[in-house]
């Protein structure tokens, strides 16, 4: 008997490692690379996510060309089954990996119907004006947790360690540690320290998804993942499938015991919807009965896990939830401090397209883009907003539009970007030093990046806080020239809040008005 080079399940594991490595590589590369255009398609995983593609397209009610590669996954799923979950999905690989730490012994009942209900509810809600599909998408959950919490935490922990060795360790040790730190800085760590709003929440959500495996292996994939639900629905009809076991296996139920998805029933029938082709059963079947091949008529086809009542409930909930949205204050008065990235579509369209993937916030070179909390409403959590005091929008940078997988932030040329106003600054003369104290300053004017400065100044004779008559330069905003980049707010040297603040007034995309009803 000729042994195959590797057991099939090892091939799958190898595939998982490769795709996880690719995912992490693209994640690290979601950063400025020394030139204006990113050399890598860093948003690849989002653009092949059919759940997000469908949700975004339903929400804007048109085809989004950027997301069409997702059709490839649908097609492959129809041919080969739900392999993406078992081989490609980096979240799935991390869940599998975390099984080393979390042994599931609770064996809660399978709830495969839940994920279909979630899928239907989220898609219907997206279509009807409540676009929140990104909250539960596995890639979005993962990238948010990595971008906002894990990667910056890894960076600051590493830097703390090497700062300690740099300051206190002997020279011979530094001769070893400093080169290691240099290599890590170039290839692994964030270039500069980064901070993010909602970092703890994002990490908590990611850990919850991983930790749910305590209930049952791959609990998230079995019962909650809406992307998994979509692929499961399609793989019911897949051309190829695993099969082989049956009544004649006798008492052996090894395959059923080891199946991480609970896809194998008492009769050793394998549900093609739930099977993610991890190939453990195929590799471990003592009698090598299980094979992957063309599906025989009807085999593996099981009744849908969602009842007709469940379908109707999901559709109804999804359709009715958005009805409550117009009752909020946001409908009349958008948050004036909600500054969207340059190239962001008008607010309603923007929310519909944004899949909360966090890519724009990861790539933002100034750490300016931050995940919103409730500033844009319940449907706006994790959408990007600029917080000037944390970071500012680099005048020549166009990266956020390049990484947005759905075009919620349009890809702008450098010229277009420089003509795009994301807001406008105003001075608080009660705090601004030349006005309030008669003290010279105008750091804001120095940093204002437009060739004809949007911050100008007037010479004024004022009495300063010591009662002396002095001449100071008092800054003011030359309205139309200001693009709202926020560098003035960022660099204002005052403690405790800037004296120059960017608001959404004058934004090119229009105000932050949200959709009114359907």
């Amino acid at each position: 008997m000729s042994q195959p080079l590797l057991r099939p399940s090892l091939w799958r594991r190898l595939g998982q490692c490769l795709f996880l490595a690719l995912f992490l590589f693209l994640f690290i590369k979601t950063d400025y690379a020394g030139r204006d255009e990113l050399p890598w398609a860093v948003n690849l995983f989002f653009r092949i996510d059919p759940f997000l593609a469908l949700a975004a397209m339903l929400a804007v009610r048109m085809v989004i060309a950027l997301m069409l590669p997702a059709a490839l996954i649908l097609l492959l799923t129809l041919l080969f089954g739900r392999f993406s979950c078992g081989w490609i999905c980096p979240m799935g690989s991390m869940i599998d990996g975390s099984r080393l730490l979390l042994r599931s012994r609770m064996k809660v009942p399978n709830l495969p119907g839940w994920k279909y209900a979630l899928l239907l509810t989220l898609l219907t809600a997206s279509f009807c004006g409540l676009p929140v599909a990104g909250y539960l998408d596995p890639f979005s959950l993962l990238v948010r947790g990595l971008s906002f919490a894990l990667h910056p935490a890894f960076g600051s922990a590493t830097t703390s360690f090497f700062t300690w060795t740099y300051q206190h360790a002997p020279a011979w040790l530094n001769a070893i540690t400093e080169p290691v730190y240099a290599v890590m800085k170039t290839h692994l760590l964030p270039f500069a320290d980064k901070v993010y709003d909602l970092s703890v929440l994002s990490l908590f959500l990611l850990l919850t998804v991983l930790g749910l495996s305590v209930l049952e292996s791959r609990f998230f994939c079995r019962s909650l993942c809406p992307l998994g639900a979509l692929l499961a629905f399609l793989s019911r009809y897949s051309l190829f499938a695993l099969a082989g076991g049956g009544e004649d296996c006798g008492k052996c139920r090894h395959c059923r015991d080891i199946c991480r998805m609970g896809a194998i029933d008492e009769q050793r029938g394998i549900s093609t919807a739930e099977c993610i082709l991890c190939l453990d059963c195929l590799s471990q079947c003592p009698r090598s009965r299980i094979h992957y091949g063309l599906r025989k008529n009807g085999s593996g086809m099981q009744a849908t896990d969602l009842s007709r009542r469940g379908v109707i409930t999901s559709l109804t909930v999804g359709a009715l939830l958005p009805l409550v949205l117009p009752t909020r204050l946001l409908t009349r008065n958008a948050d004036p401090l909600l500054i969207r990235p340059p190239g962001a579509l008008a607010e309603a369209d923007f929310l519909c397209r944004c899949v909360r993937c966090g890519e724009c916030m990861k790539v933002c070179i100034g750490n300016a883009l931050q995940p919103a909390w409730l500033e844009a409403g319940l449907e706006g959590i994790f959408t990007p907003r600029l917080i000037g005091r944390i970071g500012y929008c680099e005048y020549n940078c166009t990266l956020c539009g390049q990484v947005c997988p759905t075009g919620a932030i349009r890809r702008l040329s450098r010229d277009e970007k420089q003509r795009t106003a994301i807001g406008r600054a105003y001075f608080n003369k009660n705090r601004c030093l030349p006005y309030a104290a008669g003290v010279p300053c105008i750091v804001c004017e120095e940093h204002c990046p437009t060739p004809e400065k949007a911050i100008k100044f007037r010479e004024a004779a004022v009495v300063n806080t010591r009662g002396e008559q002095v001449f100071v330069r008092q800054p003011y905003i030359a309205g139309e020239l200001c693009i709202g980049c926020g560098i003035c707010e960022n660099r204002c040297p005052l403690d405790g809040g800037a004296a120059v603040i960017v608001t959404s007034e004058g934004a090119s995309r229009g105000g932050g008005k949200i959709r009114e009803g359907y």
Partner: protein
Amino acid sequence: MDRRQFLRDVLLWSVGASLTVPRFNIITEALAADKPQALVSLAKGEDYFALVARVLAPLGGMGKFVKPGDKVVIKPNIGWDRRPEQGATTHPLVVKALVLQALDAGASKVLVFDRTCNEQRRCYANSGIEAALAEITDSRAGIEHVDPRKFVPVDITRGKSITQWEIYKDALDCNCYINVPVAKHHGLSRLTLGLKNSMGVLGGNRGALHQNIGQNLADLATVIRPKLTVIDATRILLRSGPQGGDVRDVKKTDTLIASADPVAADAYATTLFDLPPDAIEATMAAYRMGLGEMDLARIQVVTA
């Protein structure tokens, strides 16, 4: 020896020892008085690379400043995400030529850096300086991004306005610090020249220096002491400084100015903008503190 004898000895020895320790606290004002006349070298030409050697010649060449084995820091202005023709950053050819000159003079290490205002990688890339230095294969030369661990608090004992600030260690721990500013307009300080360029080695909240910028820069000049200042006026930004952005605000002047006297270099460079040296507060303040010469009548200008 009894106790009394012991106490007396201790007392006498201590008094004697402390009296004989020389207490040098010579004020630079006094030193400046006997200094030879300040020398400013001026060179004009369109080949900016060759211009560097020419402008250094009257000062005795790079060998006058860099001795074999010296650690050298060259500090250009890379503060903004602007291209060379926009006149907001030091010309890459000038920086490259200076690095090569320092290597030829036998430097053991030549380090180039600036704490930028815009995002550092963008500044290093768009200024053209990173690429120009990448062409130098000598491993002794390098350009690096500022490492936040290297800012150390430094007492500014002679400071009239500031008494302490965080300064980049490498800028202090070198044998030869060469300041290479680009001459340009600045909204608050009118011009930014050598003294202002020193802000690129500072940590902390630099915006807080702007409330008394002239004196603050002079105070810093008491601790950040370039052996050589080379002012890049190959093209000068006349308006909308210090960033500019519009090439119509840039005037081609094809000039380099070099001096061992940081104040004299600034004073002379000011005249390129049709301003008198005393129009710049920092120059005035540094002159008053005896850090250099600003009276044009007492500066010897040699055209190379």
